[in-house]
């Protein structure tokens, strides 16, 4: 560098960056006016950040790194298992986001360097960012259950990431004989979609009731209680004979030896509780324990819990500056849901825009609503509005809560319609 002083060198590299912005658009965006934001994960959180950043400030360059060309929503995937919905109705793509000026990189993010502020991808790209948003969802802790693994999941699906796994489990349910037993295992807290395993059991019972009424579904639980429990049990009693000896659903909580410790794919059995009671079944769905998505763990964004600590006012990681974590991967008081991820994404956008513009963060506002479809014309919900207060997200007192336990049949029917309309609108929010 002897013939170039520092100033000349910077000028020369800025020129290089400008050239590469045309030839190899992903190498450097140091010259983009409003800053360059890279997002890892095009799911419930990441798509919203991409879209709303572009809306809020078109001078911000936005790159979305998503490993899959198609996204299958987990939300409503239990209805595919129940037989009322096709897998294709869960499938979405990224064309509309691209049209709004989001650069889509269909590759896996393999590393984050928070010091150099770069993301490396499986295709060998190095993306330089001013701000990075990480919304990778969950990783499944197969090791949490002896005998379970990614390979075994081809025979004993988790179906906790939608797509091929959902189709696999649905196929097994269809192939099962009447009189068969389905086992679903529910993981310890915290995990993606707290009411999800219970909605799933409901949807499976909904299918069995119509097509295989001599069968049953056994729910083995690592916990002693679950969200909307009273409402689920009310629904199960009403629709599936819960509590009688003809019940389509049986629930074994942890206190009754429900916690799964081992699976054996060779004879389709699971072992649960301290005494390792053996249960065999025709179809087994293991929902394993969970942690933040792999990229978050690999790049030092997680703490000892396996999840990502964040400043809940902005979602900036408390471990790495200028890196934001939202959605399932982040530690907050909100349930790990698509609606939470959507709401957190919008707060995160405000935080990034204000920070890039050197302004004060505005007062954040957060909301979550989760519908569960218990059966035909039978929907229930939980809602909460959160405010930031002294480092935590406190749900507004007196607001939110669950469907009233004395809700009329018409009310329950409408909740199903609202659930489906919610699905329409939230996927439009993400993908159009």
């Amino acid at each position, binding site marked *: 560098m002897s013939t170039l002083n520092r100033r000349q060198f910077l000028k020369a590299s800025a020129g290089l960056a400008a050239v590469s912005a045309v030839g190899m658009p992903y190498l450097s965006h140091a010259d983009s006016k409003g800053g360059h934001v890279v997002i890892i994960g095009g799911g419930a959180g990441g798509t919203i950040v991409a879209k709303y950043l572009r809306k809020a*400030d078109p001078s911000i360059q936005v790159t979305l790194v998503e490993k899959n060309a198609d996204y299958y929503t987990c939300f409503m995937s239990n209805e595919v298992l129940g037989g009322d919905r096709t897998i294709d109705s869960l499938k979405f793509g990224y064309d509309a986001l691209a049209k709004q000026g989001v650069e889509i990189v269909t590759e896996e993010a393999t590393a984050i360097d928070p010091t150099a502020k770069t993301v490396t991808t499986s295709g060998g790209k190095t993306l330089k960012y001013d701000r990075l948003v990480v919304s990778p969802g969950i990783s499944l802790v197969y090791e949490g259950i002896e005998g379970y693994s990614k390979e075994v999941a081809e025979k004993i699906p988790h179906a906790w990431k939608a797509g091929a796994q959902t189709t696999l489990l649905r196929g097994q349910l269809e192939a099962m004989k009447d009189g068969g037993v389905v086992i679903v295992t529910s993981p310890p807290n915290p995990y993606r979609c707290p009411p999800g395993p219970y909605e799933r059991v409901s949807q499976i019972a909904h299918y069995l009731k119509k097509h295989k009424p001599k069968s049953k579904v056994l729910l083995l639980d690592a916990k002693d209680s679950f969200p909307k429990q009273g409402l689920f049990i009310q629904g199960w009693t009403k629709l599936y004979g819960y509590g009688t000896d003809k019940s389509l659903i049986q629930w074994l909580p942890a206190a009754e030896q429900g916690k799964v410790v081992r699976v054996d794919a060779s004879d389709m059995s699971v072992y649960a509780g301290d005494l390792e009671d053996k249960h065999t079944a025709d179809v087994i769905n293991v929902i394993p324990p969970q942690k933040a998505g792999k990229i978050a763990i690999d790049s030092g964004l997680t703490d000892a819990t396996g999840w990502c600590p964040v400043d809940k006012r902005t979602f900036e990681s408390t471990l790495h500056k200028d890196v934001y974590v939202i959605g399932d991967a982040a530690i907050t008081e909100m349930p790990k849901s698509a609606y939470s991820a959507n709401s957190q994404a919008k707060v995160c956008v*405000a935080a990034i825009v204000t920070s890039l513009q050197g302004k*004060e963060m505005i007062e*954040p506002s957060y909301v979550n609503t989760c519908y569960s479809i218990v059966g035909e014309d039978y929907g229930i*919900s939980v809602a909460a509005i959160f405010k930031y207060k002294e480092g935590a997200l406190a749900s507004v007192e*007196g607001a939110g809560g669950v469907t009233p336990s004395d809700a009329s049949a018409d*009310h329950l029917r409408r909740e199903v319609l609202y659930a489906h*309309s919610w699905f329409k609108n939230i996927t439009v*929010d993400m993908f159009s």
Partner: protein
Amino acid sequence: MIKRNTLSASLFMLLSMGLHTAASAEAPDLATGMLVNTCVACHGPSGSSHGPAIPSIAGMSHDTFMNAMTTYKSDERKETIMNRIAKGYSEADFEVMAAYFAKQEFVRFPQETDSKKAKAGAKLHKQHCENCHADNGFTDEDGSSILAGQWLPYLEASLSDFSKKEREMPKKMADAMKAVMKKGGEASLEQLAHFYASQTKKP
């Protein structure tokens, strides 16, 4: 497919979108966005719903919006979930939302309606509803709400609530409702719903 997309309407949209993006980088717009974007995940982009059970709230007048939210909050008006949601926000929050949604264009997405029922509904509308629901339900005046092009399942649910007196209404409307129900019963509610849902062009 958006039926009201006349040349002048789309020009206007382009203009206002341009203004909107330019202005929304400012902090006040971020603050508005922070609140109203908590609504749109359920109620659709800018308040125009893609899901037929959830009503579009774009273009709703300030007073209609305020009245809906405050009566949800106080439980005077009952819905499955809005009572729980409304209690999470302040009157000042409602004002911000009301001002925003009042300015948004009500986008009508295609939906199927029965032309026979709609025709019968048109007659009923002329006879009983027109006085308050001007322009075939296109205009939200004195809390009349925009009915034209609203989603059919939502209109049906609302009319059913009114007819069962599960939702409060002005005396004039209660009388009209009584008259409609006496003559045609639930079938006439259906006809009215099909009529309003089928309205895509302002008369």
